[in-house]
């Protein structure tokens, strides 16, 4: 009898981790994910967004494999002339660093949010939004340089395979739209943080949810940087 009691206790404690915790979460007639619903829904949205961006990147891979024209060398196309020297991918490298910095400030904003430090949370979120805005500005510069100076169009370009333009505008355009949306989203949430909205609500989880979106935008850029610019 005593042995059975110990066994029951053991199985109860092992419910805490591993696959048993999954079974427990799904089978206890309660919500499956013990997180705020906003966070669960943001994850579901980000999952669907993952599929969208992967479809873009996969179609890019497909057209790049299948074209018989030479693919323009991104290292040269995106070079920036500084003081008479062409430095490869300079602008893209700066944009990458800016997005990583903004991800860092966002992570700290979430942290200060949970510490209920209203001022710092809002300041870090506005800083994140400002960095995001500078990213979009640089992208606008990159697009105009490519369209006006290099003559890249969605249907063709002087350097090689016409699919280069369509893939580039589609992928970076969609990502830029996400950044722009994120800047607006973060600004709204930051304004609410500053007004004490989340103190009255009693939780800063909205800041973490907004943070998830922003980190995802950074995450997508990691893949675009690797596959489109470096490949």
């Amino acid at each position: 009898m005593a042995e059975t009691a110990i066994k029951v206790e053991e199985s109860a404690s092992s419910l805490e981790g591993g696959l048993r915790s999954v079974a427990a979460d799904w089978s206890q007639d309660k919500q499956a994910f013990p997180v705020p619903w906003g966070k669960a829904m943001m994850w579901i949205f980000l999952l669907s967004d993952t599929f969208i961006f992967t479809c873009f990147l996969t179609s890019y891979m497909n057209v790049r494999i299948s074209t018989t024209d030479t693919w323009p060398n991104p290292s040269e196309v995106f070079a920036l002339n500084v003081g008479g020297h062409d430095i490869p991918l300079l602008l893209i490298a700066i944009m990458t660093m800016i997005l990583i910095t903004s991800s860092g400030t966002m992570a700290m904003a979430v942290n200060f949010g949970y510490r209920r430090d209203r001022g710092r949370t809002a300041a870090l979120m506005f800083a994140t939004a400002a960095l995001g805005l500078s990213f979009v500005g640089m992208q606008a510069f990159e697009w105009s340089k490519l369209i006006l100076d290099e003559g890249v169009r969605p249907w063709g370009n002087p350097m090689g395979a016409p699919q280069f333009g369509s893939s580039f505008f589609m992928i970076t355009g969609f990502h830029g739209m996400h950044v722009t949306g994120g800047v607006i989203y973060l600004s709204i949430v930051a304004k609410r943080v500053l007004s004490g909205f989340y103190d009255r609500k009693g939780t800063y989880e909205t800041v973490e949810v907004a943070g998830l979106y922003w980190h995802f935008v950074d995450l997508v850029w990691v893949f675009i940087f690797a596959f489109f610019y470096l490949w």
Partner: protein
Amino acid sequence: MDHAVTQAHGGHAAAAHADGQQHPIRIYLWIWLLLFVLSTFSYLVDYFQIQGVMRWTLIILFMLLKAGFIVAIFMHVAWERLALKLVILVPPLALLVLIALMAIEGDYTFLTRLASFVR
């Protein structure tokens, strides 16, 4: 102490768990620095024009490391329950099938074009 505060605000146990995504600032700063270093490395791969298998290996390695750290630490997945982790990480595996199929398809299209349209 912090934990007690979040629990008081969290109401029930589940919310208290979710509110507990509180980790030392130090972790974020380290990951931040690490992402900088990894980005610099992947930029240097291009700057020094490393080519061939080495290039793809390094690019993919740095990319996966960066993505992993962002998802695990910045997006707090490392601290979530397994049920949520599985929902986030398992479905994208289906995308690997899509990528494999499209790579084969692209190869086929390329060969067809070589055989029939390029002279």
